[in-house]
């Protein structure tokens, strides 16, 4: 319907907006190779020095390990609970079924700071009651809470498109419940599970707000970055490199999740 001029105009505007989205990311990559202490532009001299410094920095290594542990723990919990909830909602009718998806999406729909301070006050309360302490465990607890919905949404969307007759056929052929699950259901939802898990990992990997309120003394990579930005003495050159690494690392799970769900499930904003 558009005239030629409109198309060119829209195309130009679209490309400008895309450039707006990506220029800062390119800047991050460039600054990782900044050899001088100053953050001014243009970069005075290029260097790989900060890469090896970052790699050998103990605080960065500890933070990397903490981030990997937190993201793995949160992803595992999200996979188990998210798919269980998806099966329950898909297969059964029960009182409060609509409330389930609403409750699951709440941790991500409310501002992160609300989820963060709510969990923090609960952990404090748990500390009074039975000696609960802030640490990696509470970080995982917080991350899992907002990651469940990602797996749930992906799996429930897939289950809706999977015909129940396959399951019935499997049962008619004499498969027991486990075999039906293992050989019929699981293959059909596998990519949805993987995609949900990857997104959960990606979201946990660079989450900072909820983490701030649940971490105690544990430092994840985003917390380290935030501290280093606000305290330039501690790691001006390091933070450029670590920031780039965190960004590029988070692209990997997102890329694969997108490929797995492309055209089939809605990934985009589902669950956010």
């Amino acid at each position, binding site marked *: *319907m558009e005239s030629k001029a409109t198309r060119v105009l*829209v*195309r130009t*505007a*679209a490309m400008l*907006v895309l450039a707006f*989205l990506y220029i*800062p990311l390119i*800047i*991050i990559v460039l600054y990782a190779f900044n050899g001088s202490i*100053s*953050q001014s*532009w243009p970069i005075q001299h290029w260097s790989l020095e900060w890469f090896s410094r970052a790699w050998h920095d103990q605080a960065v290594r500890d933070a990397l390990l903490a981030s990997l542990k937190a993201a793995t723990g949160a992803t595992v919990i999200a996979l188990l*609970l998210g798919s*269980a*909830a998806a099966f*329950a909602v898909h*297969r*059964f009718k029960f009182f409060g079924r609509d409330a*389930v998806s609403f*409750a*699951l999406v709440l*941790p991500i*729909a409310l*501002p992160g700071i*609300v*989820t963060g*301070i*709510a969990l923090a*006050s*609960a952990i404090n*309360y748990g500390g009074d009651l039975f000696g609960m302490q802030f640490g990696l465990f509470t970080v995982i*607890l917080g991350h899992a*809470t907002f990651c*469940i919905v990602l797996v*749930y949404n992906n799996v429930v969307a897939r289950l809706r498109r999977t015909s129940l007759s*396959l399951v019935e056929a499997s049962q008619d*052929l*004499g*498969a027991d*419940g486990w075999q039906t699950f293992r*050989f019929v259901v699981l293959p059909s939802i596998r990519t949805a599970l993987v995609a949900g898990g990857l*997104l959960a990992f*990606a*979201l946990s990997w660079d989450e*900072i707000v909820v983490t701030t*309120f649940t971490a105690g003394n544990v430092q994840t990579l985003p917390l380290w*970055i*935030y501290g280093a930005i*606000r305290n330039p003495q501690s790691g001006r050159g390091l*933070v450029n490199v670590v920031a*780039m690494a*965190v*960004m590029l690392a*988070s692209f990997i799970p*997102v*890329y694969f999740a997108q490929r797995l769900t492309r055209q089939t499930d809605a*990934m*985009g*904003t589902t669950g956010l």
Partner: protein
Amino acid sequence: MHRLLGVDAEVDRDQGLTKRTEPRTPTRRLQLSAALHGRPRLKLALLLVPPIVWIGVIYLGSLTLLFASAFWRVDELSGTIVHDWGLQNFRTIWENEIYHTVAFRTIKFAAAVTVIDIMLAFPLAYYVARIARPKSRPVILLLIVMPLWSSYLVRAFAWRTILSHNGVLDWATSKLGLGAIGIGYSDTAVLIVFCYLWLPFVILPIYTALERIPSSLLEASQDLGAKNATTFRRVVLPLAKPGIVAGSIFSFALTLGDYIAPSLVGKTQFIGNIVKDNVGAANNAPFAAAYALIPVAIMAVYLTVARRMGAFEEL
């Protein structure tokens, strides 16, 4: 389906002709399967209890505790939380000008960010949905989705570098003969960064809405004699509205709750900063809880209105 081989392997081997000599002893797995068979309630309970406990007890419990704590106070001498119920925190908010200023500033920014993001998002969403070649569509979508899911902190940090004194922007404006523009650590900087951070969240629902419009509808409009502008205004825009509203939920809600971006690229305080400071340095968690109820209340109203406008189908 071919993986069913695992099921009928035994049948395969002897073509089902050999007489079975030993009866198969039921394995534990079969027993479990039999125990669950015909007991949907039990299956449902097994599936539902873990997520319900997690979200229903841990999370909703935490939220309830938070709302309750908004009515508590901190003992000034010991610094511990005292559970005597009262409206003192809300009175503090009501009586202090600064808390109004910060709340209104945050709402104003949320509204401005939403409007700007819709204007930026629309051409890109329209381009991907209706103009881009089908081949390049998934690539552009991927380019939009990647920043959405990743490195919100790093992307804010990138802008700190760009906007700071002698940074990329100062350099660019000097080259253009405008002189160093120097907007680092200003409200403008915060506005730009908010717009940047939430833009992908606004693009995708608008894209989803635009992509669903059948071409035949646009052709019909033209056949009936509408000019392009009229078709856009009377057909495309109304159909895109639920997507626009859905996108605005994100930009609005995310701005209301954020404290990271203002703390990295700005100097003024937003709702999130006040909440954060009261949990941390000021050690007044009950007040933080009370103040955090403001964005929650605003979003509750916003979501109710958005739901009426059909925005939830686009999420």
